[in-house]
């Protein structure tokens, strides 16, 4: 990143030199039009720039394009101390650098339990067995001959915000809320695959199993499988990325990410759950009384302000755009309220863009800021009437050791210099 830093520093110096003391974006305290000084013309306008004179790359240079070199900071990041190794670990989507509702495939967070399996689609098989009339094997070519659908859904790790149960720990919405992505999937409804095999009348549960070295397996009710589960081979218009389960993954709308088994190789139909490791030791939610909830599938309504946030400070006084994302595993987001004073008073934010079932929505508050301290919060409401709770309300019911399903309201304290930090407030 040294190259980045020097580039940034260089462009900043150049910008400052170019803009003189009148730089609008130079610093919070610098105001244009200092008394007695005549405005100087901007050389970025008055001088011919390199990119105006010399030819750029031709169309044969980038058969598969990448983001601009000036966007190198928009990357997944990990927190090394969270896990013992990098193969059974997680990284985080840079939410503060994104807009709209579609997460670019290359920065969609990753969660693996045995690293990224590299599978040639020609070698991939999907088996359906158990309580079915006929156990079946599908090739990728078979699956692509079946009727398919396109759906936009969020995928949130059950542990998203899990480090924050005991208090504010990580500075940045990428780290506190970045175990999520929202993409368009193309795939086949699981219902069609199950119909091919013929589900027996006593079937009640399904088990998804991955083909990677962790052999990820999870149980889910058959009713969900017959409702909206997809077996997806594409995201955002192209094949799944390897880290997202190429060539085939489960899409379990609204439910915790762990169930979305990647490198999906087998679906078993049964009459009771399997009590696999990932639904007993993990993904069960320990309460203060020592008992634990299991099969907490649904991700409740949640939201976060992505800008301003610790990684995205306010840089200008006057007009600003506050923005963030909200989602609910129970349906659509109906409303997002934003508070600037730590929850004392709220205003309803403007949702812009598609509002879809079990998908992220994008919200905005256009506001004027004069350098006063802010305590920014957002509060999502969904189509079932559920209102995103405060962290205190959650802790009152659950204690602080449930690890998963922390959908409590986030607070960013914005200082008078525009910097923001992750805080807990009364």
């Amino acid at each position, binding site marked *: 990143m040294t190259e980045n830093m020097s580039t940034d520093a260089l462009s900043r110096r150049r910008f400052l030199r170019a803009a003189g003391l009148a730089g609008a974006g130079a610093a919070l305290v610098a105001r244009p039009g200092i008394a007695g000084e005549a405005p100087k013309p901007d050389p970025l306008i008055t001088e011919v720039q390199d990119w105006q004179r010399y030819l750029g790359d031709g169309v044969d240079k980038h058969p598969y394009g990448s983001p601009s070199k000036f966007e190198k900071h928009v990357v997944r990041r990990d927190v090394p101390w969270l896990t013992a190794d990098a193969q059974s670990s997680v990284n985080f989507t840079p939410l503060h650098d994104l807009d709209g509702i579609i997460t670019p495939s290359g920065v969609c967070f990753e969660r693996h339990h045995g690293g990224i399996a590299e599978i040639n689609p020609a070698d991939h098989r999907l088996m359906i067995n158990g309580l079915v009339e006929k*156990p079946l094997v599908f090739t990728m070519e078979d699956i692509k001959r079946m009727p398919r659908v396109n759906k936009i859904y969020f995928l949130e790790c059950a542990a998203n915000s899990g480090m924050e149960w005991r208090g504010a720990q990580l500075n940045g919405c990428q780290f506190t809320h970045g175990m999520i992505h929202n993409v368009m999937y193309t795939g086949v409804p699981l219902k069609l695959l199950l119909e091919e095999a013929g589900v027996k009348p006593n079937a009640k549960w399904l088990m998804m199993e991955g083909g990677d070295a962790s*052999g990820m397996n999870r149980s889910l009710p058959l009713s969900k499988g017959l409702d909206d589960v997809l077996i997806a081979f594409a995201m955002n218009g192209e094949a799944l990325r390897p880290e997202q389960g190429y060539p085939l993954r489960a899409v379990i709308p609204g439910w915790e990410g762990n169930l979305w088994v990647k490198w999906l190789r087998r679906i078993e139909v049964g009459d009771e759950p399997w009590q696999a490791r990932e639904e007993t*030791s993990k993904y069960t939610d320990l309460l203060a009384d020592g008992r634990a909830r299991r099969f907490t599938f649904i991700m*409740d309504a949640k939201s976060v302000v992505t800008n301003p946030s610790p990684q995205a400070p306010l840089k200008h006084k006057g007009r600003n755009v506050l923005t963030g994302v909200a989602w609910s595993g129970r349906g659509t987001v109906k409303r997002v309220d934003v508070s600037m004073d730590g929850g004392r008073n709220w205003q309803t934010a403007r949702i812009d863009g598609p509002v879809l079932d079990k998908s992220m929505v994008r919200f905005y508050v256009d506001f004027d800021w004069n350098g006063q301290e802010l305590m920014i919060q957002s509060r999502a409401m969904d189509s079932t009437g559920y209102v995103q709770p405060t962290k205190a309300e959650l802790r009152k019911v659950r204690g602080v050791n449930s690890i998963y399903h922390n959908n409590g309201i986030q607070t960013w304290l914005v200082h008078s210099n525009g910097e923001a930090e992750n805080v807990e407030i009364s």
Partner: protein
Amino acid sequence: MSKSAKFAGLSLVAAAALFAATAAPSVAQHKVAAHDAGKSAGKSAGKLGVGRVALPEEVAAWDTDVRPDGKGLPPGKGTAKQGDEIFQAQCASCHGEFGQGVGRWPVLAGGLGTLKAERPDKTVGSYWPDVSTVYDYIQRAMPFGNARSLSHDELYAVVAYILMMNDVIKDENFELNAKNLATIKLPNADNFFDDDREVSEKAFWKKEPCMKNCKAEAPKVLGRAANVDVTPDEKSGPKVD
């Protein structure tokens, strides 16, 4: 791509289109299925006629999961004493000689009675509900980096050793097998219950939350992530070229 490769690709597509147009669907289905399996296999039962019947050997190779009632347990047996030896060779470098965990690798034993504590210690003995899960998980995912390498007998033996480290079984010569594994109860088996949020958290379905003057006093800062100071440095992010 060379011209000949391009041509081959085009002719394949053309052939496939021709085949689809002229051949009866059932014939096409059969040919594709036979090709995929590398041997003859039955047709799909479904209305789309896609996929083929899985052969018993194929189901047996992949369907290795084990349920709490013992369904799925393969024939085999092993004692904790045998398991100790295997564990020391295959598992102890990460999980410790006695399952206490090395560094940040998972602790497998101990922690009994800590689930209400400030810092619970969730292990097989203190937290896991079912012995079947121990067998199933080790069989599918362990040793980390060399999964699916232990024999059935080795798996029974290692599970027995883990149960002994957790004082669930006391006799190192007790033989764990397909018949008795599911009869052994773990201490925390009864402390799990199905998701009850819609009842226990009913208060969150407020419908009309407070909008104005919702707190009597101005909020105070109770905790700051900056004080904990464990956030990775922005400048230490991954190098991207």
